[in-house]
């Protein structure tokens, strides 16, 4: 698409790299002397630097949240929510989005060059945690001249970073929107992640993570990992509605080619993921999910962790989400109530499953819009 763009779109956007010269000590014990982050921003930072919103991305997300890159037909991954007049209103807020450290969309990560070796980092890239990301994002805020965020917003793994922010830098977050998240993931969730990782690790073309030098990608493993992920992002009901048991041919052909619509969908999703994502990054992201547990250093008491928080919270869950179920969001809410923090919780009636946090469901957007309108009043 090369303009004109829809009136409620941020239009043509240009990502840029920010070099963080400050050393970053990681949870794993290693230190990155410096790192680069790929960033996009929308809207204008006000004179008081008080209207900035940070958007944290989920497992496979990146900095391209809204608007269009030159020549692209499809907008960023949350374009339905971010733009002029949209719930995250770029007329009122300065919105910052980034590709997290360890990502594969331009930020320092396994597919970038390790300055010490002159080769891609590959499997030598440290296993980063949500807290490492938050610390890296805080350094980015310093670079951008943002002393504190009006709000930090994220869904799924993004919502976990939002919680981590409020605990790690209580004075730098005024509002926290935690969407379709959990205080930590379940054994079942870790199990899904483990299968995804094993699919990648056991692909002969993975080469212990050094596949870049071999000129190949572990496409089969990454594809399988993504296919599995997609099953968990959709509800049983949504799959039935979307695909049913429709055969692509009139009669069964009694072989292992694509026969059912759902097989075709999963293969397509898997393949297109291989074209845009890095296997080492997928491993890092799933590990970050598994490790996330902010209560651990507070005697496994999430309320104790939230007692140091000063942000106000909006927690949102989706009725059909079984990967990060509403019950898990209620655990977050309970801990916030026990800690005496301000929190509102909305349970959105939904059909699709975990993926619903990216959908423009009217009630969802109404709640988010209503919450952020008050934030905008506060910072205006």
């Amino acid at each position, binding site marked *: 698409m090369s303009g004109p763009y829809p009136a409620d779109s941020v239009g043509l956007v240009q990502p840029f790299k920010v070099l963080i010269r400050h050393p970053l000590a990681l949870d794993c014990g290693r230190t990155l002397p410096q790192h680069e982050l790929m960033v996009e921003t929308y809207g204008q930072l006000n004179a008081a630097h008080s209207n900035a919103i940070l958007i944290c991305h989920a497992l496979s997300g990146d900095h391209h949240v809204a608007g269009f890159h030159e020549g692209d037909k499809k907008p960023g991954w949350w374009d339905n929510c971010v733009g002029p007049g949209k719930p995250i209103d770029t007329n009122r807020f300065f919105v910052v989005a980034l590709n997290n450290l360890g990502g594969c969309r331009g930020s320092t990560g396994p597919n970038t060059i390790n300055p010490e070796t002159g080769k891609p980092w590959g499997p030598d890239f440290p296993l980063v945690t949500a807290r490492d990301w938050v610390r890296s994002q805080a350094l980015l805020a310093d670079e951008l001249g943002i002393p504190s965020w009006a709000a930090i917003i994220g869904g799924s793994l993004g919502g976990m970073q939002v919680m981590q922010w409020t605990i790690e830098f209580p004075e730098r977050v005024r509002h926290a929107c935690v969407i379709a998240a959990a205080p930590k993931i379940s054994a079942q969730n870790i199990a899904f992640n483990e299968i995804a990782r094993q699919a990648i690790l056991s692909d002969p073309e993975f080469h212990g993570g050094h596949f870049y030098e071999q000129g190949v990608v572990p496409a089969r493993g990454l594809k399988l990992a993504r296919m599995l992920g997609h099953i968990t992002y959709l509800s049983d009901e949504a799959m039935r509605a979307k695909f049913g048991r429709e055969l692509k041919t009139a009669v069964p052909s009694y072989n292992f080619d694509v026969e059912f619509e759902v097989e075709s969908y999963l293969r397509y999703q898997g393949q297109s993921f291989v074209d845009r994502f890095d296997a080492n990054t997928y491993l890092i992201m799933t590990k970050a999910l598994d490790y996330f547990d902010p209560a651990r250093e507070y005697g496994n008491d999430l309320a104790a962790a939230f007692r140091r928080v000063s942000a106000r919270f909006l927690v949102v869950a989706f009725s059909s989400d079984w990967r990060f179920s509403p019950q898990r969001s*209620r655990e977050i*809410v*309970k801990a916030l*109530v*026990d800690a005496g923090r301000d929190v*509102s*919780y*909305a*349970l959105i009636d939904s059909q699709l499953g975990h993926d619903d946090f990216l959908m423009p469901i009217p009630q969802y957007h109404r709640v988010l819009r209503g*919450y952020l309108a008050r934030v905008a009043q506060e910072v205006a």
Partner: protein
Amino acid sequence: MSTATLRPDLALICDWIKPGSRILDLGCGDGELLAHLARTHQVTGYGLEIDPEKVASCVEQGINVIQADLDEGLKGFESQSFDYVVMTQALQALQRPDLAIEEILRVGRFGIVTFPNFGHWRVRMGLAQGHMPVTPTLNERWYDTPNIHLCSVDDFERLCEDIGWRILDRRMLNRSHREGWRIRLRPNLFGEVAMYLLQDKEPATDR
């Protein structure tokens, strides 16, 4: 919003609440009570509400609201974690009002409960004529009313007595939410809305 425009029964509730308290409002609707109490009594707290429209409305007003079904109880709330747990005009629509009050008094140091009095003379008139009553206070018909556990003031007080819940104060109002001499004389006959300030039974005393 000033006190003048606050629903009169809510204004009476405000008299019972000490400034600076922590409050849980069950079935908080648009958050009218919490918003008022936050302004006038510096209370903090949360509303529980099941209706998505009302939840959105609370969020828009900056009121802490937690979307929840009261029939699922207050499992997510610690014992004695609030000064007051308030439930206005919702008791009669619950599956088990008795268990609800038990939960209210577990979570709150004090409970405030209001409900329509089924002992009111208009209700009795309806029944005397052989019909489920439809009155200005209870204006739904038997088949579409959300009210499934109606009780009279006497019934309610009998339950409190049987279980040992302590009634610290009671206010009876007519449907314009005023107290008159007739109500004071015969509350179960003339009161249309009953309001109670409750406390849990005496804890077992140490030997």
